[in-house]
């Protein structure tokens, strides 16, 4: 009788680990976009909680994602650096507690005039672009290049 709790606990732990380990398929199922860009990581159909966490992980472990095509949905945010005369555009996703947010800066493919051709701040957008890294003032930043930008009633 004394072995019952031991056996129970071991079985429970083994089954949980087995269930979680069972799904070992590749995360990045390639999907075709209309412009035939092969998406390596599609976050557009996931819940905000998972997208937030995945983008966080992507920022931490960026080396394995450089050059990969990433698609994500979030809201549009822009920041104008008046000293440099540069506008930074980002797709931002808040976490579920709404106290933190993760975002990816993007550069829209081809020439576009800001703010006329861009969506309004806070508009829900979907971006698809290739992850790249650049240096500014000695600091490395990640962004999406050659990005396709989509939003409702927009492009």
């Amino acid at each position, binding site marked *: 009788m004394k072995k019952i709790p031991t056996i129970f606990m071991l079985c429970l732990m083994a089954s949980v680990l087995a269930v979680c380990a069972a799904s070992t398929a590749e995360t990045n199922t390639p999907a075709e976009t209309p412009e035939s860009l092969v998406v390596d990581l599609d976050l557009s159909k996931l*819940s905000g909680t*998972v997208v937030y966490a995945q983008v966080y992980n992507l920022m931490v472990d960026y080396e394995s994602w450089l050059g990969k095509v990433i698609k994500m949905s979030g809201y549009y945010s822009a920041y104008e650096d008046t000293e440099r005369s540069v506008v930074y555009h980002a797709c931002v996703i808040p976490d579920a*507690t709404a106290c933190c947010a993760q975002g990816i800066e993007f550069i829209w493919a081809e020439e576009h005039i800001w703010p006329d051709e861009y969506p309004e701040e806070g508009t829900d957008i979907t971006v698809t672009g290739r992850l790249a890294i650049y240096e500014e003032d000695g600091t490395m930043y990640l962004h999406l290049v050659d990005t396709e930008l989509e939003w409702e009633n927009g492009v």
Partner: protein
Amino acid sequence: MIETIQMYLQFPLVRYALIVGVLIALCSSLLGVTLVLKRFSFIGDGLSHVAFGAMAIAGILHLTNDMLFVMPATILCAVLLLRTGQHTKIKGDAAIAMISVGALAIGYLLLNLFTTSSNLSGDVCSTLFGSASILTLTQAEVWLCTILSVIVVIIFILFYNKIFAVTFDEDFARAAGTRVEAYNLLIAVVIAVIIVLAMNLVGSLLISALIIFPAMSAMRVFRSFRSVTICSAVLSVCCALTGILISIIAGTPVGSTIVAVDIGAFLVFCAISRVKRRSPGGG
């Protein structure tokens, strides 16, 4: 629904979260029964606030692995709290309350004074409520959590009879030759380890729920220590799994979703208890 879950399971972060979440829920529920019976239900809350304060200090000191500081500090406070329960002027509940709010206040004060983070409120909120911490674990953190959880479960199984004796009647256990102080120390260390691990799952404000709800739910229906412990463990694991999956699919905060499921389970067990009492031959 199954397809949606399978899609999410393709992401390593989701698999990690499920593994760690289940292990933490299992560990916390095992010790939860002991803590509730020893009238130390709120110790989880107090220790989690200590861990928050220790985490703030570790952050200020720029320690690359804050666990090296947070774990010993939490263990030290756990030992002090469990020891002060009986033989000092400050009784258990007052000691827990003092250490709890004191650590929380000092931790937040230090963060405000010395932090270099650009998003202090975000960092604090994330630590207090868990946010998506469980989904942002590294592989090394998952391994550490798994190893510590397995050790906790093995300790509980190996010392089940002694923990049982110390939980119900320390004086009798002492008279029977059990080294009560040593086992209380062991319980304190294990609790501290669980608290530090559980901060990733539900944040420091919600840890008590993981410890109390499964145990209290099981006590509504079962009577013996063994059956309550087993029911508590199964219930805690099921609630954690359900909570994590709901939060992943619905995009809700992980910690509070798990606690909401725990509350729902408690209400169900209360209803079952009432039905059992009313039925012929019910207890």
